[in-house]
């Protein structure tokens, strides 16, 4: 096992990383791919940054992960804003990546091995990921491009946008955040979106095979495919098939609008 405690700057090549685990408060986290595994870490303020590398797992943490839970908790809340570091990791595409931050934004790109991201207010940027994706945020926005995997996204007030995706399934839940999906639909794909007040938009190709099941209390429906609410007092729903069905879109909102649009160039 290799272990480093970093007070200022640190940079080294590593043996092949198989799993990346980052737990930091503020600052910046970037995890990208390359043939040579490499870390580049700078402590900007707060406690030392702890780095551990064992059996292919790289563990980066600020504050100290080995502090007693209660102490860690007090350090977090008493001086949460003080802990700040800049973490840049290069790992092989096959690596599994797990990142948790409080306010630090994270950029993760190029991985096939599955990616989990948790943040309170950090902005999350994801690109070219083909392993399953699980992202949770409170107020940070999620922006993803070129995702080819099942994705599970949860947000309270952050906006969710998936551009240029070819996801086999999407499970997106937001409270007030908007959910915007720009997808090539999988013929057996299921796309499940729930919001309270956030607008749900799906943009896909001009002639999709898609079954739409949506309910809303007061949201508006806008569609290029001639979909319209079947309104009853206190509830609107639509259950229609575009083309020959196949892929399924399930949407539930309270006051959020629903847009089902064409306009995506056919693959």
């Amino acid at each position: 096992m290799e272990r480093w405690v970093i007070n200022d700057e640190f940079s080294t090549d590593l043996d092949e990383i198989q799993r990346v685990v980052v737990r930091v408060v503020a600052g910046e986290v970037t995890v990208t791919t390359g043939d040579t595994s490499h870390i580049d870490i700078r402590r900007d303020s707060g406690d030392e940054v702890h780095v551990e590398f064992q059996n292919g797992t790289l563990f980066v943490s600020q504050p100290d992960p080995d502090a007693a839970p209660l102490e860690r908790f007090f350090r977090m809340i008493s001086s949460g804003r003080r802990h700040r570091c800049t973490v840049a990791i290069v790992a092989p595409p096959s690596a599994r990546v797990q990142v948790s931050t409080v306010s630090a934004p994270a950029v993760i790109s190029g991985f096939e091995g599955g990616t989990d991201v948790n943040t309170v207010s950090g902005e999350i940027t994801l690109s070219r990921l083909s392993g399953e994706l699980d992202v949770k945020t409170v107020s940070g926005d999620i922006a993803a491009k070129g995702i080819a995997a099942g994705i599970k996204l949860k947000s309270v007030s952050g906006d969710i946008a998936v551009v240029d995706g070819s996801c086999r399934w999407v499970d997106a839940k937001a409270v007030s955040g908007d959910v915007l999906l720009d997808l090539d639909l999988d013929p057996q794909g299921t796309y499940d979106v729930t919001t309270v007040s956030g607008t749900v938009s799906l943009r896909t190709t001009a002639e999709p095979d898609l079954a739409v099941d949506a309910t809303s209390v007061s949201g508006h429906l806008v569609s290029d495919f001639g979909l319209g609410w079947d309104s009853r007092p206190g509830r609107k729903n639509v259950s229609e098939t575009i083309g020959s069905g196949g892929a399924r879109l399930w949407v539930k909102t309270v006051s959020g609008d629903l847009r089902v649009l064409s306009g995506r160039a056919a693959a």
Partner: protein
Amino acid sequence: MSKLFGHGDLRLWLLKLIDDHPRHGYDIISGLEEQFLGIYSPSPGTVYPRLQALEQEGLIEVADEEDGRKVYQLTDKGRAELEARTAELRELGDRLAKSARDIARDIRDDVKSAVRDLRAEVRRAAVEVRRDERRASRAGRDASRERTRTARVARDVSHEVRGVLRSLQTDLDGFVSDVLSAARRHGVDRERLDALRQALRDARAAVVEALEGRSKGA
């Protein structure tokens, strides 16, 4: 990403890479790619002519050949040049290291601008669809208003027609009762009946002709 290297920077960086260990051109290209996470990948057309120039200047030489590829190493002159430019090289190294960090920023900018474009496009499309729907419903409303108006006109017309027919009926009734009372008063024989029928036929023909002529004229 060619802005990564300013004028003459790539030449210096190539010397540095070859100084690290002897390499061939392909090795240098893939090394650069790796260093910049695939975002900067120099083309062979960028790298090979520069290697040739360095060889002609006597800064590098062919140390070995591997599968037909020339493996270059520094000459003494090359090492001297690199030593003379140490400060410059360190500065370039720092700048490139920062560029590598900038790559993540490039990725973020790329994804963000894609999201921004998409959001604007979807908003525009939604507005357009809504406008089309509004236009369609307005057209629908106009059509139904037109229908209402036509129906009202038809109703008015038929009302008028009924009035005309009613007065015509009154006239006809008067005509019939006048004829009958005249016949009763003066008596009718067969001869007069024939004349009367003839007059009625003529009158009917004239009336029908008047009606038809009027409807034709209208």
